């Protein structure tokens, strides 16, 4: 080949490899992008897992919202996990507290992570938690139990057509692989 065309080839090759590189970066950038996208659109009722401060907002006594609380335990998580109330009626703007209870039934120390989800997804923007066990992981020794409070208020701007908000918490086994195998030995 003539050097001329070698150069031309190298330059196109470099550009093409540039696209490949960019798209590889893009593939991984989809992870944070997706999370932003979820927070904007409320896909999966994925909740912004961060603490919010209770702002003294006007309590809207004229509206009553039914809040349902659901707990689930993921496969292979030998804990009990439940709420003390399954359902409560709240007014937008008021601060509410509900209690959750967890207990480790196994013979190992296990770390749990509760994953929150809200239905309808749209409601997740208007749900503010000032305290939640889902912000951190919980580690329980064999037989140990824990009461966990969760405080939240619903933004009075919650769209008119929403009458019921369901909060779901799924407890996952977050014990890392290494400590698991240590425990097994």
């Amino acid at each position, binding site marked *: 080949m003539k050097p001329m065309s070698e150069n031309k080839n190298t330059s*196109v090759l470099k550009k*093409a490899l540039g696209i*490949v590189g960019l798209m590889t970066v893009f*593939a991984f950038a989809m*992870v944070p992008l997706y999370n932003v996208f979820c927070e904007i*659109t*409320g*896909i999966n009722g994925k909740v912004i897992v961060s603490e919010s401060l209770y702002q003294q907002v006007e309590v809207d006594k004229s509206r009553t919202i039914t809040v349902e609380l659901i707990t689930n335990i993921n496969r292979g998580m030998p804990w009990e996990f439940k709420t003390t109330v399954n359902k409560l009626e709240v007014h937008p703007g008021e601060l509410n507290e509900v209690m959750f209870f967890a207990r480790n039934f196994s013979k190992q120390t296990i770390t749990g992570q509760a994953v929150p989800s809200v239905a309808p997804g749209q409601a997740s923007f208007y749900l503010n938690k000032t305290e939640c066990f889902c912000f951190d992981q919980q580690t329980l020794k064999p037989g140990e139990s824990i009461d966990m409070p969760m405080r939240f208020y619903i933004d009075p701007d919650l769209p008119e057509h929403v009458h019921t908000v369901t909060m779901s918490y799924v407890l996952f*086994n977050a014990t890392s692989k290494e400590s698991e195998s240590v425990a097994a030995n």
Partner: protein
Amino acid sequence: MAHDHHPTGIKRWLFTTNHKDIGTMYLWFSFIMFLIGGLLALGIRLELFQPGLQFWDPNFFNSLTTLHGLIMVFGAVMPAFVGLANWLVPMQIGAPDMALPRMNNFSFWILPFAFTLLLLSLVPQLFPDGPPNFGWTFYAPLSTKYGPASTDFFIFGVHLMGISSIMGAINVIVTVINMRAPGMTLMKMPMFVWTWLITAFLLIMVMPVLAGAVTMMLTDRHFGTSFFDAAGGGDPVMFQHIFWFFGHPEVYIMILPAFGIASHIIPTFSRKPLFGYASMVYATASIAFLSFIVWAHHMFTVGMPVAGELYFMIATMIIAVPTGVKIFNWVATMWKGSITFETPMLFALAFVVLFTLGGVSGVMLAMTPVDKQYHDTYFVVAHFHYVLFPGAIFGTIAAVYYWLPKWTGNMYNEFWGKIHFWWSIIAVNITFFPMHFSGLAGMQRRVPDYNMMFEGFNQLSSIGAFMLGFGQLIFLWILIDCIKGGKGKATDRVWEGAEGLEFTHLPSPAPYHSFEKAPEVK
């Protein structure tokens, strides 16, 4: 430059940098994979012949569907198109060879290793928990937390075939951009080159995304990340978004070159120029562009916000417009032509007709509210097999018949070619048409057993599948016969109405180095 001084025997194939040798290897490799993938499909159809479990454990059945999908997509269709590109692109643009011949060799020789990794998972002594069993779409967490040990081999296999496809695509891009004969402007390029150039851009844009997805799977499985695990703040639905961001353009990667092939064969046998060349190019480009913004129509049941569902529905339906333009243009090409029906033309016609069927069921699937009934049923299976078998595979077969005399210098056996065609078209419809019905009536995908009410259609499909599978042995025989001499020497033009540099400027068989001196294109 050395002329025809190339090693012989195994060394010729191992070290070759010749586009024709590499193209031949790609095509044979793809044919072998096609037969292996077909055998797996026959395993599926065998189990589905009757209600009840007669042959496989359900877990192995899932492995059969998984490997069938992966091998057909990555092992049969994609390498077949790369093989055709290798053979045809340099000849069609008036170049001596591909631009990056050593990379060309490397990109082929990766493939056998990639598929060895994948097929090793079938050896129970190595993988007691069996081959990958999560479908070719490998949704998390079934493929991550719950995947068998062989998943890691699958991941490396996908990485390798991804690298191979990217190298193949880059080679096409560099060749087409730099090595066109003087006078061949972009808008004078043959349609096959155009569709492949666009496919190549799709490939280099989405294969890295697939590589990213499987890398995330790997780190989720072994390095404690949780991209797709809700426990660590990840989301299994995100896997589907990333996968289909790759997956939808991938669908077009598997069909655009076949569009290009039809755009050569139909004008040749209609003895009339292609109708609406420019609109064909624009339609192909817009299909490729749209493929990037419609991915979530594969996921209408994951619980997207309604605005998202509406957007993806409308964007998807728009694809029907450029696709329709292509089909109407092919019909208009035949209009007032002087048509003969040699085997390549028969396959190309079947391609247009049956691809149209796959297209209209595609419009139905795009409509979100009804897709909630169609989703993950045999209706979807019928749809994509209509697009892939009579689309991608018939397209490839048509291309092989069309260019085989140019490649070998010999005419293939037309009589057996026609038998192959009629056998295949009858079998393909017996196999896949009934799937529309069982899907609508409620049979879900990827199940080893089904209810009594689906028995009749499943039996038909199974009978059709065995006919279709064994019918391809006719093709194998025709190929071998043609290479050995076939029905005598082919002329340089081969077909009365053939156009393009490979027919008008090169002898049959085409010389080892295509154009030593670039031809002048007016």
